[in-house]
């Protein structure tokens, strides 16, 4: 191959994509700087979920219709497969939170691949961080409420181990429970959605860059690039569901850890 992919033609294209692409301009000129596509999408997700679940449960039937069946599947999944499985019988009272969290994350993740939207609020660290803070407060709160402040910290910081290894273990427990947990919870979701968006940008925009290459041999390669963009979009569906699942599973496992009698 002689022709190198010319960057000359790419001048008008925002290629390669950069982190700057995730700092969106305000939607309305002169409006609040906080009113971006992200903000709008979060509101949209909240609105969709409220409307969906309200309609689904407005007139519940013994034999559910399609919408009710979908809503019940989501809730049943969070209740039985996550809450009850991870936390046990008393986990059922966390099912509403877990179901809400799960459907909100799924929906906002899926925004990343819906044509015309193609941007997930979760690809901006602020949104996963907020979700992680909520889960962090939740599991600490239920733990403190169950055991009281001192006993909760003793319970979560002091593992059942001989006294002479405790000085090594306690700092690890502290960092892992109170710092690494919320941090990884947020970063895992953020990084997955961020990377997914960047990959789709690379292959989609890269197709245009290839198409504008000078060599005739390079131009058709853009088709490969776009085909990959389509294929990766389907992969992103999987990632979107998986990350939402991981998020609620970890939240419930933290709640379980905070409530557990003895480890």
């Amino acid at each position, binding site marked *: 191959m002689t022709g190198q992919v010319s960057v000359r033609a790419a001048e008008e294209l925002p290629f390669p994509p950069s982190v700057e692409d995730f700092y969106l301009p305000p939607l309305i000129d002169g409006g609040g700087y906080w009113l971006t596509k992200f903000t709008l999408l979060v509101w949209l997700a909240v609105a969709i979920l409220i409307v969906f679940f309200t309609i689904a449960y407005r007139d519940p039937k013994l034999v559910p219709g399609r919408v009710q069946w979908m809503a019940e*599947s*989501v809730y049943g999944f969070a209740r039985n*497969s996550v809450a009850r499985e991870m936390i046990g019988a008393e986990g059922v009272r966390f099912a509403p939170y877990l179901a809400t969290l799960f459907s909100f994350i799924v929906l906002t993740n899926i925004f990343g691949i819906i044509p015309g939207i193609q941007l997930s609020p979760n690809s901006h660290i602020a949104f996963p961080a907020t979700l992680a803070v909520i889960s962090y407060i939740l599991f600490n709160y239920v733990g403190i409420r169950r055991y009281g402040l001192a006993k909760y910290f003793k319970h979560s910081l002091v593992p059942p181990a001989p006294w002479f*290894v405790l000085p090594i273990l306690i*700092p690890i427990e502290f960092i*892992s429970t109170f710092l690494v947990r919320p941090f*990884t919870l947020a970063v895992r979701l953020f990084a997955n959605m961020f990377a997914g968006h960047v990959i789709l940008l690379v292959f989609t925009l890269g197709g245009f860059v290839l198409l504008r290459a000078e060599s005739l041999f390079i131009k058709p390669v853009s088709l490969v690039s776009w085909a990959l963009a389509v294929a990766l979009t389907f992969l992103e569906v999987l990632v979107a*569901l998986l990350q939402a699942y991981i998020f609620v599973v970890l939240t419930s*496992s933290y709640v379980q850890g905070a409530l557990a009698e003895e480890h």
Partner: protein
Amino acid sequence: MTGDHSQHQGDPTPGAGQAWAALGYLISGMAVWGFAGWLVDRWLGSDGIVTAVGIMVGVAGGIYLIMKRMGPS
């Protein structure tokens, strides 16, 4: 997610949660004691040997914690 998850059986096991928790312990162990070792290194002026020891102590502590907290009791 559609209806195939409303059943108990056939779900992906929440082992994913356990795996991530285990990873958290390992990383925290390495971070805490590696950092402590690094501080000692700076204090003594040695070139990284205490950091290495610290990281190994951290990994050992992390594995021990995983066994204690998550293993069969």
